[in-house]
Structure formats: C-alpha cells, structure tokens
C-alpha cells in the first residue's frame, strides 16, 4: 500500500503542475481563438455578400437611389483624395514636431513639458470631438463649408498626435553614437539631423504615418459632422462636397432595400483591400529600409 502511494503522490504533484501548464496553454489558445474566430466569421460573412458585388460597374459608378445603378466611384476617390491630403499635411508637421521635441527641446522647460503632455492627451481624444471642432471652427468659423479640405484638416488633427509619437520613437531609436560622430566631424546640428538621423529614422516614421493614415481612412464620425453624409454624384474637388467609403457604407446600411446591404458589403471589401494594401506597404517599407547598427 505505502509502496504504491509514494510514487503515486509524486506523480500526482507532477501531474497537477503539468495540468496547470496545459490549462494555461489552453486558455491562451482560447483567447487567441476568440479574436480569430470572430474576425474570420466577419470576413467570411462580408465576403459571401460582398465579393459578387465587386464589378467594374460598382467601382466606377456614382451613388444612386436605385441599388442597380449605385456604385462606389465617388467614395473611393473621396477616400483617396483625403488620404493624399492627409499625408501632405501630417507628415511634414508631425515629423517637424517630433524633431523639435527629440533633438532641440530642452525637457526641463515647462512649455516643452506642457507640449508633451498635451500631445499625449490629444491622442486619446474621441474622434467625434474633432468632428465638432471641425464643424464649429472650419466649416462655420472659417466659412470653409462642407468641403473635402475641411475633412482632410480634421483628419489631420486626429492623427497628428499618433504620427508625432511614432516619429519621436523612430528618432529616439537612432543610436546617439551616430549624432556624436557626425557632430565630431564638424557637421552642424541640422546637417546631422538631415543627413544622419532622419534617414535612419525613415522606416519608423513611414510605418507610423501609414498606420495613422489607415486609421484615418476608416474614420466615419468626424466626417459625418463636417458634412460627408451627402449624396454626391460627381468627383470630389479640394473645395467641393465629398463623401468617403466608410460614410457610403454607413448610408447604404441604413437604406431599406436589401440590395443596398449587399452593396455595403462590397464597399467594406474595397475598404478592407485598401487598408490591407496600406498596412502591407508599411511592413514592406520597414523591412526594406531598416538598418542595423
């Protein structure tokens, strides 16, 4: 009896530990599975409805009251224009701010500290608040009207903190030895930044910017407030009315005809493809240009 119990207990202890280990492993897998299964379900559901919609007619036609006529062209162009303007606005301002904060700012000064706290807080402001700001300040205050430029400026404000934070991380990751070496060879601070620090930081900056852009392209709420929820059947211009893909999806989903829900699924796929393409480009850029020191 006693002979039998001793090894059993030893094995028992062992087994509990193994069981715990396995349970924990199972829990981790379960956690992964929740997100994965949900995502796959959504994708499959959207793909079943949406893929048959992806015709040339759908991609090149203007929106319409009648589902058989409706297409996504104006919204696609709107999203692309928004994206281009967004890059033109955010990258220079964001990178310049990051350079100032990382390379020039004296962190002991109160105004630099205030700046830093502010930027971090701005990154957490809900996007609808930026929309209200846009409506009050740009659309009505500056009498810009409900135009593409107003939408682009609001999205710029929305993602600027993200771009600044990402660019700062990238600049900070450049080893100090590079700066010291450059300065020791007689380069000015600006030459050091322009010729050494920035080129080394480009992959990080680009990745951050593209991810921020991807977020902005998917935004709906702030654009609703600056008037993108509109039937527009002509191509957008800088100072003209506009719509964007997420807004078009939102509008189609609220229409009574079942056909519009299918069109919305098609639009979701187009949006997903654009976002995936942008994210893959960011990954490729990072892998291609990363330097090892």
């Amino acid at each position, binding site marked *: 009896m006693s002979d039998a119990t001793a090894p059993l207990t030893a094995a028992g202890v062992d087994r509990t530990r193994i069981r715990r280990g396995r349970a924990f492993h199972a829990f981790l897998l379960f956690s992964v599975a929740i997100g994965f299964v949900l995502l796959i379900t959504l994708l499959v559901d959207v793909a079943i409805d949406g893929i048959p919609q992806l015709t040339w007619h759908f991609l090149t036609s203007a929106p*319409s*009251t*009648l589902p058989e*006529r409706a297409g996504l062209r104006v919204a696609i162009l709107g999203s692309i224009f928004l994206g281009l303007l967004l890059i033109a606005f955010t990258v220079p301002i964001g990178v*310049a701010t990051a350079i*100032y904060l990382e390379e*020039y700012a004296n962190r002991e000064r109160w105004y630099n500290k205030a700046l830093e706290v502010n930027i971090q807080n701005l990154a957490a402001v809900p996007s609808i608040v930026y929309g209200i700001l846009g409506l009050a300040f*740009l659309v009505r205050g*500056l*009498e*810009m*009207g*409900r*135009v593409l*430029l107003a939408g682009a*400026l609001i999205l710029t404000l929305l993602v600027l903190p993200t771009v600044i934070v990402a660019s700062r991380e990238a600049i900070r990751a450049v080893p100090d030895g590079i700066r010291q070496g450059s300065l020791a060879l007689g380069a*000015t*601070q*600006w030459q050091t930044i322009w010729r050494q620090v920035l080129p080394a930081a480009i992959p990080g900056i680009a990745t951050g910017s593209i991810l921020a852009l991807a977020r902005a392209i998917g935004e709906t709420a702030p654009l609703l407030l600056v*008037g993108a*929820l*509109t*039937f*527009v*059947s*002509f191509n957008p211009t800088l*100072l*003209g*009315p506009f719509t964007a893909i997420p807004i078009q999806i939102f*509008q189609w*989903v*609220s*229409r*009574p*005809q*079942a056909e519009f829900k299918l069109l919305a699924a098609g639009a979701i796929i187009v949006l997903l493809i654009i976002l995936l393409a942008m994210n893959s480009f960011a990954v490729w850029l990072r892998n291609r240009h990363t330097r090892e020191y």
Partner: protein
Amino acid sequence: MRHRLSRKLLLFVLAAIGIAVLAAGCGGGDGEEGTPAPAPAPADPGASPPPSAPAPADLSGRIEADGSSTVGPLTTLAAEEFQALHSDVQITVGISGSGGGFERFCRGETDLSNASRPIKDSEVEECQANGIDFVEFRVVTDALTVVVNPENDFVDCLTLAQLNTIWAPESEGMITNWNQVDPSFPDLELSLAGPGTDSGTFDYFTDEVNGDEGASRADYQASEDDNVIVQAVQGDRGGTGYFGFSYFAENPTAVKALEIDGGSGCVAPSVEAALAGDYSPLSRPLFVYAKVESFTRPEVREFIRFYLNNTQTLAETALYVPLSAEQQADAIASFEAALATPG
C-alpha cells in the same frame, strides 16, 4: 547653437503662420465663391418670367439640398435624373433629418430643404431672422405605417385610441402588455420601437396620435435608422413600431402592417388609400422647401420645375405615394407664383 535654434524656431513659427493664412485664404475664397457662383445668367428682375421658359441647354452650377432622410431618396433620384440631362449641374443631397435640414436652410447654407413635416414656427422665425424667404412644395405623400411582428395573429387593426394607449406619455412604464391595450389581446409583453425625436416622422405621429407634437412615452427603442426599427419589430413577437411607407414597401414580409381605424373603419396603408385620402390621419404630405433667393439661378429654377413636373414618375420609381394630379398642379402653381414674385 542657441542662435541657430532660435532661427529654426522663427522659421517654424513663420511656416505655421503661413499655413494658417493659407487655410484662412482658402476658407474665405470658398465663402466668396459659394454665394454668387453662377454670375453669367442673372435673371431679369423684371417680373415677367415666362412660365414655360425652354430649359437652357447649358445649365451649370451647384445646388445644395439637405434634410429629412424620408424625403432624401426622392430628391436624390430627382437629382440623378436631372444631372443625366444637365451634366454640368452638381446637386448634393444631405440627410441631416428634417430639423437638422431646416437649421442649415435657415442659416442660408442650403438651397433646398427636404422635410417630412411642415416647417415649425420657431424655424420660420429663425429663417426670418436671417432674411431667408422660402416656398413650400408638397412633393409626395407618405402613409405612416404601423407594423407588428409577422407572427402576431391577434391584431390586424388598431384604432387611434388604442395607438394612443400604446404611445401616450402617461403610458410610460404603465402599459407594458398587449392585454392592457385591449382585453381581447393575449398576455404578451409589449415591445416598442420607433423613430427618434429628431425625426419628422416622430413629430407627425405624436401630433396625430397623442395630440401634441413631440409628446411620446420615452421607454421605447428609438432610432433614426428605420432599418433598426424593422429589425426590432421582426425580432420580438410582441413588437410594434412605426415608420414611413416606403420602408414597409421594401420589407413587406419582414413585418406586418396594421390597418388603422381613424374613425371611419379599418384602412390598410397603401398607395391607393393614401392617394384617395382614405388612410387618414396617418397619411401625410412630404415637402421640399426652396430658398426664394436661389430662384435667380437658372439651374435651381429648372431643377425644381423638373422635380415637380416629374414627381409622379419619381415617386413610383422610389416607392412613394405619388401626388394626385390636382396636388401636383397646386405645387406647380405655387412654384410659378413664387417665380413671378419679384425678389
């Protein structure tokens, strides 16, 4: 170092100011562009607009409409058909709701305002305060439809009094079961869905059923999106809700429409009943309001003329209840009268 830094700072500040000035310039530029856009064809102020002026072939310019999501699809269809004829005219149609549309309209931001209810006195004052003169056109009729779950087999018709029992403000928290609406109904929990307070449909329904515009119980699932109401009613055996006729026409099997007894027997919502005026009191006119000042622009004149002349075909295509020939003639007459008024 310090010197260099302050120079950079200076440059940065200058750049920032430059951007600000640029933005302001763009804003101002657009504002100027927005008001007197189509200068080439100033209508003669001489009060002799020929009623059947031939449509100029080379219309251009931008027309802005906003307002009710119930009327929006109809105006959108009119805009599409009109733009097919005049490709240089750009028409935008927003869907901010009747109230939101009037808010923009009375600020002078839009040329046309879609509305699923007549303009309120407060909104008229707002328009007057901003010097906006407007004309009201009835463009189409709607049969406000009360629906229940398709499995609901105990009710086919409700009287106005019963509807009031269901929706009255006093019923909040009190009337929660179908058997409280009528003793002959089974013991089944009542579950309500309807449009939110920004909606013209809500205003009209509460006015007709509860006797006071905006008076409604608040413990129901409110949504500006009529699809949400359809889904709520579809998903609950005791569900009931109300919305515009075209939503029912598009989803005829998802929900069951009730006949309404407005005092002279049960009438089912239908195009014919609404057109004949039998579906009372829940059939209602839908409107487009136009800014008189915009009539000086030929593209706006022609668009409204096109809209009113074709309202019956448009209504049939977009599943609305068309105007009767008489109502259409009235609308056209009030448009021509407004054109004849100088100013």
